[in-house]
């Protein structure tokens, strides 16, 4: 009896081990085939324009250490690590550098405000009160010269970031849509093509041609409005700020709604058609079903991995390109708010009001960059999430 038990257990163990080894062998073979398929597809994929954009606009080895294809391969292999520590150290470095560059401007503005305060405190001795107004006019002119110089450089930087994001979209979307088309997701590809055109063309141009001029107008009128006690242009400044915010908000809401509706519909249609094909295979070929449906996914699975890894790299590129100008504008805006608070008790209220108005208006510039970046990120994320046929 014991002998029988030992023999039974041994036979069962041998069967279990052989099944396990067959499974492992099949798994290794599938992995090798998948790697081969990925290598083939990756070598055929044209990423030269995307690489050129990275070299021209970012070219930071901390962000993407090697060539794009090598990075995609390392993401697929699970070797690519982008930890929070290095990301935050990059942001902290950028903040520190911007604070250092803003300090001389803030000191100069504070010195002018103090000078005005000292001179105006002696104004009781002046014959006419208009002399005090002339001193204010001179100090104010000196201040706005410095501020407008910095604001102009920020506007140029923001416009160039928006244009560079537009150029990144022009380079990234054809690659992503090619990968989606290669997956056979005809509905999603048809939906994304006009969507990406709307984002890259219509929305970016509307922002560059309408929102940016409105921002500049709002800043200039805000500055000029504090020049004289008699002419108040506060409401006009608020009107321009509200208009630019309204246009930005409207554009983003419409785009996100459109994106959600169309993206879901397109990907759903594709998923249903592919799932039907898989179901047909698995139910009608009971013995071979598993093997066949696994085989069906090999080339497609490779393309899905490449699509998602390319999407991740594009996301990193977007974040890296918007992080620097947003930090730059954010630091300057906060510095102006701080200066406005420091200046308020020592001199004329109009100085503090002007500084605060400019600081508040800079928020629109941050909204422009973050808004376009957000729409871009959302579209790329939807591409990553959509058409994952084998896993959805």
């Amino acid at each position, binding site marked *: 009896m014991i002998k029988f038990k030992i023999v039974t257990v041994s036979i069962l163990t041998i069967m279990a081990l052989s099944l396990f080894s067959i499974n492992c062998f099949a798994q290794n073979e599938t992995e090798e085939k998948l790697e081969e398929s990925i290598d*083939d597809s990756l070598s055929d994929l044209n990423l030269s324009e995307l690489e050129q954009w990275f070299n021209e606009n970012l070219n930071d080895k901390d962000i993407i250490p090697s060539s794009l294809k090598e990075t995609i391969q390392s993401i697929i292999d699970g070797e690519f690590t982008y930890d929070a520590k290095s990301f935050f150290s990059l942001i902290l470095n950028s903040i520190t550098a911007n604070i250092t560059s803003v300090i001389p401007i803030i000191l100069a503005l504070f010195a002018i405000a103090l000078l005005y305060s000292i001179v105006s405190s002696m104004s009781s001795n002046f014959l006419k009160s208009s002399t005090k107004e002339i001193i204010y006019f001179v100090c104010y002119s000196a201040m706005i010269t410095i501020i407008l110089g910095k604001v102009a450089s920020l506007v140029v930087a923001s416009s160039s970031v928006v244009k560079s994001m537009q150029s990144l979209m022009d380079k990234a979307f054809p690659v992503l849509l090619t990968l989606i088309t290669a997956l056979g997701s005809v509905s999603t590809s048809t939906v994304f093509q006009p969507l990406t055109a709307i984002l890259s063309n219509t929305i970016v141009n509307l922002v560059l041609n309408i929102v940016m001029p409105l921002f500049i107008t709002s800043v200039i009128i805000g500055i000029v409005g504090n020049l004289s006690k008699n002419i108040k*242009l506060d409401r006009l400044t608020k009107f321009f700020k509200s208009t630019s915010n309204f246009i930005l908000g409207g554009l983003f809401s419409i785009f996100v709604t459109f994106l959600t509706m169309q993206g879901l519909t397109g990907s759903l249609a594709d998923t249903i058609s592919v799932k039907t094909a898989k179901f047909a295979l698995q139910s009608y070929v009971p013995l071979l079903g598993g093997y066949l449906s696994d085989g069906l996914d090999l080339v497609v699975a490779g393309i899905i991995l490449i699509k998602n890894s390319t999407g991740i790299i594009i996301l990193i590129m977007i974040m890296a390109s918007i992080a620097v100008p947003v930090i730059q504008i954010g630091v300057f805006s906060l510095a102006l708010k701080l200066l406005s608070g420091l200046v308020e008790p020592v001199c004329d209220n109009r100085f503090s009001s002007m500084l605060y108005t400019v600081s508040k208006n800079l928020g629109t510039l941050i909204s422009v960059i973050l808004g376009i970046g957000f729409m871009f990120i959302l579209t790329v994320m939807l591409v990553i999430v959509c058409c994952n046929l084998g896993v959805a």
Partner: protein
Amino acid sequence: MTSWIAGIVGIVVVGVLIDILLPEGDSNKYIKGIYALIVVFIVISPIAKLANGDINIDNIIQNDDTYCEIDDTFVQSVNNDRKNQDIQKITNSLKINGFSQAKVSIFLSTSNIYMIDRVNIDITDCTQNSADCAQKIIDIVNKCVNCEEVKIYDYK
């Protein structure tokens, strides 16, 4: 827009100069009243342009129909890989069902999307006859791939 902003800046500077230079007196309030009217006139001047419909949307949004071209070479290369994979799949399935010498060829549609138009099976080297096993082969192929037409060739 630039000229409008320049106009506002200019009129405000003039206003500051009026404040500084204007002597005290009865005429002061009338001059300030006229000045306020000029400021309002300059501020609302672009509204007239808007009402005339002078804004051309084409200047703001440039339509580019050629945007986002798909890389056909890559898609064709992936489709070829998938075709070879499907040929392998059908060949294996036929082999399991006793058609080990069958030759499989797949013809795709001309579009970018992977769609199989026709599957040709050549069973000349197989021992079976096409008349006996045609339906069986068609069933095997249909279970492996989605296709409109399966043609079986037997030159025995």
